């Protein structure tokens, strides 16, 4: 058994195990933690495919930044809050199921067709360029800053829109309910008031 098969095996078990555990975890922080483990496992999967830069991004951005954001959200909302049964967004569950089915169908289709679909598609030349360079940081940069320049710049606009939107919302939030804008002592305060 060569070493990459062994690594793949371990990665497979860890990613799948933590994903399933995530679904059944009751505590929001535990869910976030299992998601972190999944992200790190996926980084290993990228390493196996020789995408070292993507693996680093996976850890820095997903495991390091976005999951911290998740944890902050959980702590912002208060972790021991029971799951709300009345949903503010109507029909989001059926919609989620539908979209998930669509995604699963897509994944199955790609798996059925094999990697030919990706390598012979429109991005084949770019993909070959990427794989020609070990570690592919330089090749990736050349592709991003020439061929995929527009998506790259649009990404920044997307990020800015997200930030501005959240700032507007957060300001409204602290204006409406002062409790959520306060920290730490809020629970004790509430109990004292009661």
């Amino acid at each position, binding site marked *: 058994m060569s*070493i990459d098969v062994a690594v793949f095996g371990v990665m497979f078990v860890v990613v799948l195990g933590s994903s399933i555990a995530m679904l059944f975890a009751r*505590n929001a*922080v*535990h869910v976030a*933690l299992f998601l*972190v483990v999944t992200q790190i496992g996926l980084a290993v999967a990228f390493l196996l495919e020789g995408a*070292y*830069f993507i693996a*680093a*991004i996976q*850890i*820095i951005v997903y*495991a*390091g*930044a976005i999951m*911290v954001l998740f*944890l*902050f959200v959980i*702590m912002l909302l208060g*972790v021991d809050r029971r799951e709300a049964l009345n949903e503010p967004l109507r029909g989001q569950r059926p919609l989620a199921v539908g979209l998930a089915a669509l995604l699963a169908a897509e994944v199955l289709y790609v798996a059925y067709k094999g990697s030919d679909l990706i390598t012979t598609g429109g991005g084949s030349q770019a993909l070959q360029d990427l794989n020609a360079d*070990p*570690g592919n*940081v330089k090749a990736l940069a050349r592709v991003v800053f020439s061929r995929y320049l527009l998506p790259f710049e649009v990404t920044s606009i997307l990020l800015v829109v997200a930030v501005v939107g959240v700032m507007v919302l957060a300001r409204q939030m602290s204006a409406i309910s002062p409790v959520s*804008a*306060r*920290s*730490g*002592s809020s629970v*004790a305060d509430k109990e004292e008031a009661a």
Partner: protein
Amino acid sequence: MSGLIDAIGPAVIIALVKVLVTFVMLLGITLLVVWAERKIIADMQSRVGPNRWGPFGLLQTLADGIKLFFKEDFRPRTADRWTYAIAPIATMVPAFLAFAVVPFGNEVTIAGHPINFIVSDLNIGILYFLAMGSLGVYGIVLAGWASGSKYPLLGAIRSSAQLISYEIALGLSLVPIALVAHSLSTLDIVGAQAGTIRNVTFFDGIPVLEQVANIFRYVPNWYIWSQWPAFAIFLVAGIAETNRPPFDLPEAETELVQGFSTEYGGIRFAMFYLGEYIHVVVISAMAVTLFFGGWSGPGFDFLPWLWPLFWFFFKTALFVYLFVWLRATLPRLRYDRLMWLGWKRLIPAALLWIMVTAVVNTEGVSRNVRLGVFAALFLLVLAVVLRGDPRLKEAVTPQRRRTQGRLSRGAA
């Protein structure tokens, strides 16, 4: 068994040996650093410091470790069991993993195999270092949350906000290095700093300066000369990342008891403690690697492999001393000033410096122009600092704000 060794080849054996040697070394250094800090601080405060165990109290850290080992360990009733147990591990592991990309000696050949004194030379070394830094947040945030107690939670949330703020500055301060080195591999970066600054033709033709410029032949070609603003940002952000004074808000004992680790005791507390010092060693080693030429230094014929190791550890020790010195000197920052420094000073400064470095390093700009720009900038800042311009103080101090009537909003 021998069949297995044949199958996996000598590479894995070398890797194993490297890993074990690095671990022993890292733990040994960390124990020494803990002792050294106590001794140095004691000296700065006119005390004696540890002097009971071993010569000069050298074994004090070990004695403390053994003591903590035999201490009862109890988890608060309100704590979240598994998260509480994972947090110390989550603190330790990223801290020492970051050391894997630090080269601490020149290449040597043992039994026909060229061996580098580095656990592994990753082609994305700098990014790996940053990745481990970003995972370091979890140890603190989990410890604080899992304790189910108020002080740790406040300490943790405060600390993680501090860590993520300074992580950006840390990452951005390394971009100029990647720009001038054309590589993210730490081995390449050390290699690019080898030798001395030669061929300074800037002063050619000017009688006296031409002679003076000869000293450049003895000045090592380190990145610190041209990249000192990046280094300044790296150092400040690095100290903030280690949670050391003056950025030790996570465990500000006057406000938060012991911060995120309040509810931890015994060997688990020792893990947090050890993790912090490993982090100090790693940041020092990284500063040496990226800005001070790593292991490069004058070598001699006597034991040629030893000198790079000596220079690396010597430079790292100087940085550790700086860490301790800062702790003995500077008071803790207030939280709003900490955030102010990170977001409104360090990040814009880092972005600006990346742009300056990029412009100066554009193809076609001659080496003399580059040297001129960096030298002029250095002299300008030196002049401003020496003159003691009041605007300088304004630039590094947040403006006073009226806080009346706003205090009730509550600062966390």
